[in-house]
């Protein structure tokens, strides 16, 4: 039964939805936050780390009350090729000084906390409810239906995640194609906190973030990740779905192979698997962006494809939070003018462009295509590990000039000078 009309119905109590609900409720608007999980965060998973800047602007020093795991002090990228591994590592104690740069966190507890902030501010959180339909009136979104219940609002904010069922039902988005998304799989591996700190050479409660390229994805476009939580490790893989379409190895076997990789096994030795999760990752950026706003509806977070993977940084939560903030600001303005038409909600794009969301997606718009280059996942990891392996090997063999050694290794890895120059130029341009 339709009840009194709300300002906003927000579908999905993830970072985008809860941020929008928190801001709108703080400003005194009637909002309902609908979540299909029995608790906020119960359906959510990600790699493992959130950059703090976006939420810190909305809830300053949120880490003093939010359930966070470890602040990241150390970043490592490792190229894997059989017995060989080659790593680039960077530590910055400034990242863990007051005003933390990024935290590992677990979504089940963190998303529940953020939704509770929205609730405290006055939003109504309704968990365990799956939205079945969007209610439309002459092309305008006017509410939602869940089971027998209908709910009406000035605006619906679709923050329902990467599968974006609502955006598709409203005709804002089409089903994406396989190359536009990747499947992320992750295992939570429990280990004592002291063991983790010792193994990763971390002082106190500091954390480490590691990304892996090469063998781990079975030559497919994708890579591995490892993040240290307080007393567990988040270990997983992200592999492009178009590549999975051609795979003849089961994804679950690929992640088990990754765990037994000689460069990974010692890091997780003695651990106990506590959870196995999977999720799609929107990877195509602007190329897969749905219509972001229309009469009576705004799309935010993963549902809008707001994820940015540069190969060395992977961001989603900060984009979700900032897009939720932009959606809330848009609704506040629209309410003041009582105009929830497409025109009235068009300020959403302005707010996204003023923030890093659209700025970064536009700046790195060629990155998704650049990362589809298969050489990134086989030939280049082979090259760097092979070259570094020779560089550090002393076996009494005759001297080989460094340039000759590099060129020889390139030939061995099947890379031409022309390809290297072209990929280098493309990479430099995309970044």
């Amino acid at each position, binding site marked *: 039964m339709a009840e009194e009309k709300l300002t906003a119905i927000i579908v999905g109590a993830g970072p985008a939805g809860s941020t929008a609900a928190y801001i709108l409720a703080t400003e005194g608007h009637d909002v309902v936050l609908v979540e299909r999980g029995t608790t906020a965060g119960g359906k959510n998973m990600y790699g493992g780390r959130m950059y703090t800047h976006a939420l810190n602007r909305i809830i300053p020093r949120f880490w003093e009350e939010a359930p966070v795991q470890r602040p990241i002090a150390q970043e490592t990228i490792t190229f894997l090729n059989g017995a060989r591994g080659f790593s680039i590592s960077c530590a910055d104690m400034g990242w863990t000084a007051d005003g933390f740069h990024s935290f590992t966190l677990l979504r089940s507890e963190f998303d529940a906390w953020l939704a509770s902030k929205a609730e405290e501010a006055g939003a109504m959180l309704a968990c365990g409810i799956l939205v079945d339909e969007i209610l439309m009136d002459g092309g305008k979104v006017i509410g939602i239906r869940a089971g027998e219940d209908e709910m009406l609002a000035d605006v619906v904010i679709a923050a329902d995640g990467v*599968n974006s069922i609502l955006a598709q039902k409203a005709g804002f988005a089409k089903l994406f194609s396989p190359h536009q998304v990747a499947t992320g799989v992750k295992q939570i591996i429990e280990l004592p906190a002291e063991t983790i700190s010792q193994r990763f050479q971390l002082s106190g409660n500091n954390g480490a973030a590691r990304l892996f390229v090469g063998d781990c994805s079975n030559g497919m476009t994708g890579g591995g990740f490892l993040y240290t939580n307080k007393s567990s490790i988040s270990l997983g893989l992200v592999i492009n779905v178009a590549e999975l379409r051609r795979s003849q190895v089961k*994804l679950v076997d690929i992640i088990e192979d990754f765990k*037994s990789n000689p460069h990974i096994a010692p890091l997780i030795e003695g651990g106990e698997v506590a*959870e196995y999760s999977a*999720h799609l990752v929107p990877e195509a950026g602007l190329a897969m962006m749905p219509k972001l706003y229309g009469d009576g509806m705004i799309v935010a977070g993963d549902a809008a494809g707001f994820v940015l993977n540069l190969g060395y940084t992977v961001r989603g939560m900060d984009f979700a939070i900032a897009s939720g903030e932009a959606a809330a600001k848009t609704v506040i303005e629209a309410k003041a003018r009582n105009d929830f038409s497409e025109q009235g909600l068009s300020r959403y794009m302005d707010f996204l462009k003023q923030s890093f969301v659209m700025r970064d997606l536009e700046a790195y718009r060629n990155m998704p295509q650049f990362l589809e280059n298969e050489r990134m996942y086989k030939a280049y990891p082979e090259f760097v590990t092979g070259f570094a392996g020779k560089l550090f090997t002393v076996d009494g063999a005759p001297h080989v000039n460094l340039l000759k050694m590099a060129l020889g290794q390139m030939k061995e890895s099947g890379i031409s000078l022309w390809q290297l120059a072209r990929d280098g130029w493309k990479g430099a341009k995309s970044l």
Partner: protein
Amino acid sequence: MKRLTVEQLLGVNKFVVDDDQAHIKVNKEVCSACQPKPCIFACPAGLYSIQNEEISFDYAGCLECGTCRVVCPNAGIAIEWKYPRGGFGVHYRYG
């Protein structure tokens, strides 16, 4: 660490299985004409398999990722894909 089977991995998860309704339905006729059947390899929970020469799907261990919906060469036809009803399905305790 010891190698785990997909059954062992799913066994550590918390699921509230909806005994009355399958949220994903597979059209076996369409699937029988599909040669590559990428769902068998791509589903992270390994829920698609061949049994008695036809595709078999078990929705109980579904991680609700949506991979099958996208990887399917007959997307939108072979697999009727929905989320489980509210309150059912996987419940991530870590995430």
